């Protein structure tokens, strides 16, 4: 599913690499817990995995395709087709309804549109959002509800990869566990690979594999030590 090697990345204008990863491999259908303190390059790595950033050297392959080999427009289309993304918070466009937010990836990807068909409503039901909420503007949901809408949006049309960037950091303990359970369950049902990033190591037990970013990112080593 994900195959990366020899990664080096530095932000534009910076003189030092902030991310150096020799190798990263994730099999299809697995759930990976990636933990690391803030500043360990989590956002950078996720940007590279989602093909929004390109490494200075090395490659990131998703489904066997090297992001760097695709043109800008093709990368965006490829991401729309195969990647679902959940942010820490403020995932939703406040001026769209719950249902429209969930269907957003289908507007950019014919493939996911086709796969989703009429599945949006069922998916919303499965993540615990009843029909009464669907027409409601996203701005009028609680944080917990918003994150579940975000999960449904990431999952719609069964993308091969779901990336979650600290999706539980804004949730309290009870909501956090149920959200992680829900996300894992739905990814499994859709057959999607899940890369879940958090600094909260207590969640690691839920996942197939755990990776410590501080260990695989050699650029972060001096700071961690």
């Amino acid at each position, binding site marked *: 599913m994900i195959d990366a090697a020899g990664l080096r990345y530095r932000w534009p204008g910076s003189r030092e690499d902030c991310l150096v990863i020799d190798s990263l491999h994730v099999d299809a259908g697995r759930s990976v817990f990636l933990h690391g303190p803030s500043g360990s390059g989590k956002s950078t790595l996720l*940007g590279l995995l989602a093909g929004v*950033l390109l490494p200075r050297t090395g490659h990131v392959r998703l489904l066997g395709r090297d992001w760097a080999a695709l043109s800008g*427009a093709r990368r965006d289309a490829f991401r729309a087709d195969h990647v679902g993304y959940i942010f820490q918070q403020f995932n939703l*466009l406040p001026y769209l309804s719950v249902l429209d937010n969930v269907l*957003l990836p289908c507007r950019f990807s014919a493939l996911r549109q086709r796969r989703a068909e009429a599945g949006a409503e069922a998916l919303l039901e499965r993540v615990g959002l009843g029909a009464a909420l669907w027409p409601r503007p996203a701005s009028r949901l609680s944080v917990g509800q918003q994150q579940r809408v975000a999960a449904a949006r990431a999952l719609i049309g069964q993308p091969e990869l779901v990336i979650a960037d600290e999706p539980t950091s804004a949730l309290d303990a009870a909501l956090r566990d149920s959200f992680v359970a829900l996300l894992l369950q739905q990814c499994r049902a859709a057959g999607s690979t899940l890369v879940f990033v958090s600094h909260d190591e207590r969640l690691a037990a839920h996942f197939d594999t755990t990776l410590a970013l501080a260990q695989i990112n050699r650029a972060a080593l001096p700071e961690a030590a």
Partner: protein
Amino acid sequence: MKAVLAVALRSAWSRRGTLALVGLSVALSTVLLLGVERLRSDVRENFAQSVSGTDLIVGARGGALQLLLYAVFRVGGATNNLRMESLEEIAKHRAVAWMVPLSLGDSHRGFPVLATTPGYFEHFRFGDKQPLWLAQGRPFSGDLPGLYEVALGAEVAQRLGYRLGDKLTLSHGGGEMPGAEHADKPFHVVGILQRSGTPVDRTLHISLQAMQAIHLDWAAGVPLPGQKLSAEQARAADLQPKQVTAALIGLKNRAAVFAVQRALAEFEAEPLMAVLPGVALDELWDVVGAGERALLAMSALVAVVSLAGLVAVVLAGLNERRRELAVLRAVGASPRHVLLMLAAEGTGVTLLGVLLGVLLLAAVIVALAPWLQSNYGITLTLSAPSAAQWGLLGAVIAAGLLASLVPGWRAYRLSLADGLSPRS
């Protein structure tokens, strides 16, 4: 593409308050720009329509423009008078078909009084060689029994509510001096002209003899003390005018116009001048043109300012929308989609603003046209945009499109740099 525009529309709608204000400023600048252009072309049209079929206007030597403005548009001050004898001699020129003397200077409640001969109603033409028609009654007769008769322009009758048979008195000069009334010699209304959209509508027409009669007991702008002549006594006096202000001349053959003009310029008895109305109008446009261009340039500047406001508002909102852009990027929108979204927003606001401006201008024209007509004699017409106006509209929209590319480009750069993690 369609998906992006649909999202852009919803996004813009959620910020409709601010965008509506920007749209309004675009609308107002459109009104200004188109309004100035419309006023400019309608004023020109009005002036050009005011006189036709007259080959030459004769007056005392002086400024051609001043003569035209005074004789045809009743604007400005009188030039020197010319002697009636000279005019009679000119009328005998073999190329001259008709000659109508004009005498100006008095007024009635702000409307100018024109003393002339009945031939004026026969020969004067406006617009596309249209003659003057009477809506009611007849022209003044020009003979002694009908000495105190007046024919009113349509606007005079309408505004002051005069009907046939009503009596009115004239003021000496522009009416600015209190007591300078020809109160002892009242006129009665014998005719009301049909509306022509020219200065004729604002004019009261009397005979040259009547003009002479009301000034018999006046000198140098004041009544002569102890020399009162009643209206009836005046009839017995010599009422042949000695001097007039100007004269309109029609030729038998237009080809002779320059020959006659030269003959008049070389007239020996007194210094005269003859102007071709069209040539004098061109001279007027030369004078007015600079002002018009300045006005148009100012309006264009206002349009630029309002578009700058549009750019500023959309740009200012962009920082708060970086999160929105990241979300769109995450679901598969490309930076190009983001550019399109922002550019579409600005262009849409411009288009709506321009449309609103066109409608507003139509409303303004409908509301102001009667007032302009009665106060300035300018007929504003509500019509489809002219070629020049389409040009201006196109320019505003094109400028709006270009201006919208600025926030669009900025958003493009931002979303490339931010990726999925906006750093603000």
